[in-house]
């Protein structure tokens, strides 16, 4: 079961990366980056669930397989950072499209390369 989950997670990461690579629309690129980051976050969650899936809150009377709290704790930071970068980039895209009403990466690149 774990292997299948992991395969799906990697498929998500790869789809996101291919989207960043192939999409010509700037907003789509930013969204594809979010898909990729979703995949990475899911990988941390899958990794945490390897030893068990119960919430890692220890109760003496409860004898179950707990999930590993560490990967979950650290990925929280990455989620927040990912969200803020996403927001920042979308604002940038908005500003950019107001100067020059297109979202096509090649157009913008042609116009702004020396």
């Amino acid at each position, binding site marked *: 079961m774990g292997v299948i989950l992991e395969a799906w997670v990697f498929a998500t990461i790869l789809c996101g*990366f291919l989207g960043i690579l192939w999409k010509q629309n700037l907003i789509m690129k*930013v969204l594809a*980056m979010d898909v*990729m980051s979703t995949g990475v976050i899911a990988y941390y969650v899958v990794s945490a669930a390897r030893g068990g899936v119960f919430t890692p809150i220890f109760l003496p009377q409860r004898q179950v397989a707990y999930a590993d709290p560490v990967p979950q704790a650290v990925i929280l930071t990455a989620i927040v950072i*990912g969200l803020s970068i996403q927001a920042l980039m979308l604002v*940038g895209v908005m500003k950019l499209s107001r100067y020059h009403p297109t979202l096509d*990466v090649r157009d913008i690149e042609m116009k*702004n*390369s020396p």
Partner: protein
Amino acid sequence: MNVLTLVWIASAFFLGFGIYFMPSLTRPLALLAGFFSLGYGLALGVQPEPVVLRLLDSFGVGLFLDSLTSFFIITNALVTIAVIFTLWESDKTPFFFTQILILHGSVNGAFASTDWISLYVALEVVGIAAFLLITYPRNERVIWVGLRYLLISNVAMLFYLVGAVLVYESHHSFDFVGLGEAPPEAVALLFLGLLVKGGIFTLGFWLPMTHATAEAPVSALLSGVVVKAAVLPLIRCALLVAAVEPLVRGVGVGTALLGVGFALFESDVKRVLAWSTTSQMGFILAAPEVGGFYALAHGLVKAALFLLAGQLPSRDVRELAQQGIPRTLGIPLALASFSISGFPLLAGFGAKVLTMKNLLPWQVGGMTGAAVGTAAIYASSFFLPWTRTPTSLPRGFWAAMAVLLGGLLVANGVYYEAFTWGNIVKPLGIIAGGWGLYWGVVRRLQVRLPRFLEQLEHLLGMMSVGLVVLFWLAWSW
């Protein structure tokens, strides 16, 4: 020292946000943060044993600061101080200074951290602060360049995160040492992130355009310290994990040659400096044990050169060669160029001698070639005609030059053992060779190297290629 370390780590952020509460004290507060870092870095340098701070339990999250780190912290402090001096009389808003301090603090955090997750957080904050500094003028071009930078660095850091969890799975901690037990794909993914962030080897093609488009003080920060936030962890890994040392050294030689090769055929001053940054990162990585001193010498020189480039009448080398530059700018330009070429009595000389001494036999040829190339790149700045036209430069600019070039002279004393006849003759020979190369070949060439590799698509494509190559290297070593 432990309490001092914690206060110092937090100080840049507190002072940075404090600027917003006291906008009238913007510049003094920013300067205070810079001098605090400088004092801390110097104190750390004379401290015999490293400072080690560990989070409770065994997840490897913590801080580690030793004399190698102190070189990087001093570089960061001096460059920040110089940039604040330059901007003293400018009309930049408190927002700009807050971003400078956040950048300063997060770069310090990246230097101090010894685990993959703290480093991730520090590097991402560096990326956001750098983006906001680059896009400060808010015209179309800087926004595009900033977006490009953020996209590339964030994608690289996502790969890096996958590598970090692979290290955790094999070692049950995020410590750098865990890299030794991690599978080769973890090494490939983590190094991809760090190499892209540091602008190293073929993964660093985003660097020239980004550094050349930003305003002069921002370029000074980006080239002087920001790229080093990703270089110190690479050095640290090479020192901690013997298995990746040849990889780091090899990448160093490749980067040094690549950067020099591109810089020689460039005619835009700021792009020459940016390519030269790439090649100098290679010098730092080629001899990881002594990279700290080289980083100090390079950071000061490159910040000075970028600040000077901002004051030059033109950005085209050929135009400058025709119309000449004011003598008041020519003297600091010559001093900085002498240091980076490795001329005695400036820090660049000691750093270069030290690096050359710590190379492995298979690296010597390539690095000597890169040193000759570096001398050739900067040879052009000695042959610019000086004009007598007086220029009125702000006093802050001269204060910045005094900090940076004075720092170079003082830092020369760090490795005074370098002054032997044998050591002095070799760099002079390299400089002579470089000038000969410039005068005989480079000056006559009218080559324009293609720039298609700097397009966004190719930058992203290079990342997937880089991942495959890094995996193959990590797997075969």
